């Protein structure tokens, strides 16, 4: 599955710089709002669903080489966080829906949890 399919199907808002999202592969999904859990639980090229909008999410996504972050419930990262994400080439997407619904929609699209 590529990231463009996800953005279109879930009608996500792109918070960071636009690019050709169809070339970005998404291999799995992971959800947690505790960053310490994400650091040990999410997998490279996965998509991370979270309510957290603190700037530390950018560092976590960069550390794990995630495909993108979906920030739920319209939680708004500040401009500094968005700038940092652009600088580190991290894609941040936004949805008004809560974690549960976003995950449900991704599951229906066929995206599953981590492979291990």
């Amino acid at each position, binding site marked *: 599955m590529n990231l463009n399919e996800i953005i279109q199907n879930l009608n996500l808002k792109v918070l960071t710089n636009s690019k050709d999202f169809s070339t970005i592969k998404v291999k799995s999904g992971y959800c947690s709002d505790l*960053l310490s859990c994400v650091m040990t639980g999410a997998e490279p090229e996965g998509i991370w669903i979270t309510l957290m909008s603190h700037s530390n999410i950018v*560092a976590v996504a960069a550390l794990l080489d995630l495909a993108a972050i979906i920030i739920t419930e319209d939680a708004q990262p500040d401009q500094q966080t968005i700038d940092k994400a652009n600088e580190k080439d991290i894609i941040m997407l936004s949805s008004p829906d809560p974690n549960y619904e976003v995950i449900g929609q991704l599951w229906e699209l066929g995206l599953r949890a981590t492979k291990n």
Partner: protein
Amino acid sequence: MGTWFTSNQKLTHKKVPLKTYLSELHVHTVLSPCAGVEMIPPLIVKKALDIGLNLIAITDHNASENVPAVIKAAEGSDLTVLPGMELQTEEDVHILCLFDTVEQLNKLQELVDKTLPDIKNNVEFFGEQFIVDQTGEFIQRKERLLINSTQLSFDEAFRSVTELGGLFIPAHVNRQAFGLIDHLGFVPPDLDIEALEISRHISLEEAKKNFPQIKKFPLIQSGDVHYIDDFLGVNQFIIEKPTIAELKQAFRSINGRCFTVISHN
């Protein structure tokens, strides 16, 4: 007490009398729903003095109404009471916010009141939230549930507390519940955080070993006093007077000021 230390400020060459302050900087009162009924001003002051402390901070959850009563209860004694609050940020991270004056604390309280959800306390589930006077006499119940997240982000809270002249210490960073490391993964590197707090459940050595990223910060250790026997009182400051500016100098080990955690069993 009262030992004279030489200030290392080369320009002044002045000798400043420094004093030892033994402190517990995380004390709840009966205003916090999770605190014991004995956490009333006179008993808090008596216990602190009994165990040889001369500095405490009152830090109720998202609230400050009982601070003036504890300050009054300590009047005329050797105990200094710093106005404080244990703020809960929108990321569910607990922060000790300490100030010199009740006025500064009240300004933080205004921000908190604006963003704390207006949910009524369920006494049966969470416990009573009592506002009391300096003798511990009941004044009124706080109706709004205090154990909840404000909508202040960690960074916003840091900026607000710092701009008000306060000290911002993320609380019990080693704990899974409401601790900085679990919720935010690591200490945000862009903020100039003065110190972190570890809980009583871990030694300084264990904390530094388990969480290498916190090693570079001064670490205070607190009893997170919800019951009168929770006092730990191991934070020792050698400073001129018990003010936020002096505590900051002690954390930075400048001008002859210093901070250490004394050993306890």
